[in-house]
């Protein structure tokens, strides 16, 4: 009887005025801003199954509050919410909470340990059910109950029996729930803006480039590829993506909510049963999660249609018709790309929206070797200066590009390249492959071990621009170089035009110190 006494004593201590609870079921409007994983290299793709970055989710919610201190529970927040990142505008709270005690079999058993529930047994032969009172004495994965007959294990008998609970405790919730306790306030209708970071998102810039047949320009189409692995779909969300590297703290890589959910869903009821001596009562396999929703681009307004197809005669190809292009703006030292109309960021899906359409970016195709001891194998690249005068002049977020060219056999893939974040007025080089038709052969004459004679041969039926780059090295230099080298930061460049099916010769010497 002692325990009863203690329980009775504890009641007055907790029976002070409990604040009223107001539920906010869903946001009125939601904005999702995706961030690129700062640790993912420009040539690494998004991990679609488990996106490694995060999003900032800003919701506005309208609630009607009674006066006084009120608990507001926000339902339908992202499952990957990092609770410590949440900010609230419109209603300064006294405290805010993220409750991760989940309504599950484990949660129910824990909540009702020591309390009376009903044990229901069904006779499979007759369908008759028998109910008897029981008290839970132990946890869900090692369930022992007391009945008027004595003590027994519920899930070790092989009988069809289950526990029936009198209610679902208010402290348990279906998903981790964010709530706040307001200060003493007059009550009424309040609009609250809730912003928080949620993990399980990522985005990438992916470019599709079409090289003109003369190699002097290309069309560039930039896609924002956005991935969400969250359980929550954000319908008609104002969607944007941030380019540039943000600093992260390990404290924000919070997956406590996910961990608790997994722990709750991995309950093995018969794990601590006594040996049954047989395997005939095997457990059913766990049910697979629901299949992901199909990717959807839900245009909110109906009047966006593909109006005109821009035809670029010079490119000899039909460009992709793009009717919606995300707009760029500065956000401090980052770039924000805003999708101009609300879209749905569906749970566990990937979607793409264009953010850059450039019809004609002028540049040139270069065949390049870097010289260390001797010229290395030749790479092919497209180089352009990122400025308006050359048809570009917009920031270029890091990502991968696919390069096509329209040849005699139609559209051909000529290579893939990647670039880091490139600001306006920078040189951009898209290195899209090794050049097999342009070969370099270097010889060292027997009488001069420091001398190099390199023969560069062009097997293509067209003339090419060839560049040999001599980087400035701390340990050795070059002498006897041809005249008219181009100086670039950290290197000197020898540039030559090699006619179709022809060759050029480059001679130089390696020296300890540079006498240039």
């Amino acid at each position, binding site marked *: 009887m002692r325990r009863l006494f203690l329980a009775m004593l504890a009641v007055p201590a907790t029976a002070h005025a409990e604040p009223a609870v107001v539920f906010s079921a869903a946001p009125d409007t939601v904005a999702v801003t995706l961030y690129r994983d700062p640790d993912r290299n420009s040539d690494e793709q998004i991990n679609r199954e488990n996106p490694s970055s995060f999003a900032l989710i800003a919701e506005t919610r309208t609630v009607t509050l009674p006066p006084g201190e009120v608990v507001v529970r926000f339902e339908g927040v992202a499952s990957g919410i990092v*609770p*410590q990142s949440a900010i609230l505008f419109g209603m300064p709270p006294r405290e805010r909470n993220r409750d991760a005690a989940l309504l599950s079999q484990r949660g129910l058993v824990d909540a009702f340990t020591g309390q009376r529930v009903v044990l229901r047994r069904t006779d499979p032969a007759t369908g008759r059910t028998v109910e008897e009172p029981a008290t839970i004495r132990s946890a869900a994965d090692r369930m022992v109950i007391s009945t008027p*007959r004595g003590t027994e294990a519920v899930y070790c008998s092989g009988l069809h029996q289950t526990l029936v609970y009198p209610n679902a405790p208010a402290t348990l919730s279906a998903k981790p729930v964010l709530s706040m306790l307001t200060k003493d306030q007059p009550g009424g209708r309040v609009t609250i803006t809730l912003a928080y970071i949620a993990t399980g998102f990522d985005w990438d810039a992916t470019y599709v480039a079409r090289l003109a047949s003369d190699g002097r320009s290309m069309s560039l189409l930039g896609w924002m590829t956005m991935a969400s692995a969250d359980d929550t779909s954000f319908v008609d969300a104002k969607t*944007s993506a941030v380019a540039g590297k943000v600093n992260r703290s390990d404290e924000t890589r919070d997956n406590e909510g996910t961990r608790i959910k997994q722990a709750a869903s991995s309950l093995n009821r018969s794990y*601590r049963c006594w040996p049954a001596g047989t395997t*005939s009562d095997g457990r059913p396999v766990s049910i697979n999660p629901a299949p992901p929703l199909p990717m959807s681009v839900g245009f909110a307004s109906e009047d966006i249609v593909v109006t005109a197809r821009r035809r670029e005669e010079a490119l000899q190809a039909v460009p992709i018709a793009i009717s919606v292009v995300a707009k760029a703006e500065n956000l401090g*030292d980052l770039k924000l790309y*805003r999708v101009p109309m609300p879209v749905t960021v569906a749970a566990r899906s990937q979607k793409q929206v264009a953010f850059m359409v450039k019809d004609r970016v002028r540049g040139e195709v270069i065949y390049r070797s870097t010289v260390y001891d001797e010229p290395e194998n030749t790479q092919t690249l497209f180089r352009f200066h990122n400025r308006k005068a050359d048809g570009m002049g917009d920031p270029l977020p890091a990502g991968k590009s696919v390069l096509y060219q329209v040849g005699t056999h139609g559209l051909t893939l000529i290579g893939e390249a990647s670039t880091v*974040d490139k600001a306006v007025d920078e040189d951009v080089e898209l290195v899209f492959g090794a050049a097999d038709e342009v070969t370099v052969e270097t010889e060292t004459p027997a009488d001069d071990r420091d001398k190099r004679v390199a023969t560069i041969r062009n097997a293509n039926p067209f003339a090419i621009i060839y560049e040999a780059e001599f980087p400035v090295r701390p340990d050795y230099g070059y002498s006897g170089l041809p005249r008219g080298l181009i100086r670039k930061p950290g290197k000197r460049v020898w540039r030559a035009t090699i006619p179709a099916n022809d060759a050029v010769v480059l001679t130089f010497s390696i020296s300890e110190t540079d006498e240039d």
Partner: protein
Amino acid sequence: MRTTAVAIATGFLCSAASVSAESAQGDLSVTIYNNNLALVQDVRQVSLPAGKSRQEFPDVSAQIRPETVTLSGDGFGIVEQNFDYDLLSPAALMGKAVGQTVTLLRTNPATGAETRERATVLAVNGGVVLRIGERIEVLRDDGLPVRVIFDAIPPNLRARPTLSVSVDAKSAGARPLTLSYLTPGLGWKSDYVALFDEKGGKLDVQGWITLSNNTGTTFSNSKALLVAGSVGAIAQSPSYYRGNGSRPRGNTAGTESGGGEQLGDLHVYPISGRTTIANAQTKQISFLDVAGVPARKGYEFRNGWLSTADEPVSASAVLKFSNARTAGIGEALPAGTVRVYMRDSRGQAQFIGESDIPHTPGGSQLAIRTGDAFDVKVQPVLVKREEIAVSVWRSYTNWRVTYRDGKTEESVSSTAYTTPDSYWRNQMKYIVTNARPVPVTVDVFQSGLGRWWWWRDLRVGDESIPGVQDSFEERRWEVPVPANGKVELTATFLTPW
């Protein structure tokens, strides 16, 4: 045991379905330290019989450190303290029943008819061996359902780990007992939300205390006190060490005391009123809300010795502010994470980066890295490196660097270390570009200038902008770059390496 079960069931009915009211906790006060440690004090009204008795204390932290438990009160002495963590499970129950009799209830799967037998448990070794009358049987070997009913639960098998104390009381009667113990699983840290207004040069800072409870127990309606600073953290892992090198320049510890409470060296944050810290809960309580703190942004870039970059590299964006009283904060900032937001063109707050800060006394200068600048870049380039004659080296005597301590060189015994016989002239160029429509200033750092710990005779031949020798290791230039512009910084270092 049956009476206890009934008693609890009655208690359940009395408290009108409120689950939280079931807690056996008394008047709670919790002191939570930064390093995942809490001191719990629980004052319970307990009626002790005269003489020796065993008192159980349910609803203590499931992660309690039993060796730290103390129980105090009037008129009794402690005989022993026990912490029982042999958990009640079907397997444990059967294991303890070896040699005892249990009741078997068999149900005929075809008719549903029940038969009842008494059986003695002989052994539990991969199959429960039973003696029923004169037969020996293995439990449920036929796969048919059998209910096993035990007469009682052995006393030391628990639903949850349970603390019990045996006491010897002089006289019977109810009295308050104070139970105090340490538990891990209850910790706190701070989180800051900083809304930066770049045009106005202002920062709004909110500070939140984030409490987390993973103890497995809910602490109901308790007084809470938070203590900043690590207590007794002997086994602190070296990964927590944050050297100055990883933090941006501009962090200076302050000397102001602030208005908060202190406990020795530690800062104390009492939480007003009583609060319930539920299990698996993350609770945040506001402790700081300041608007209009002056703040500015800076950029910095660090280059390694003789390092050349193939293409321009983004400089770090650094946010600088102070928690001095004159700046509007005037409080110590406990260690935590600062998350920086800015409003976009439509006024929506967007996240621009975050950084951890250590315990920061009042009056400190803070510089936190928010991320990399998209539009502000530096390309360091080695222009030329050449060996120079000793006579050339001597001609550069006037270019000796003055260190922070005012010395130009440090006298190191030349007998212990030989004078180098070769010297190098290293010409560096740093191309600083700014694609932003506003002018910026970039702090460019060159490190690797103290490669030999005993060599203190660095000579900087010429530099296009006067530099500052921040340390033996690093030299810094403040490079102003016009809007949409480019500045080339050059510097020549004369070194024996």
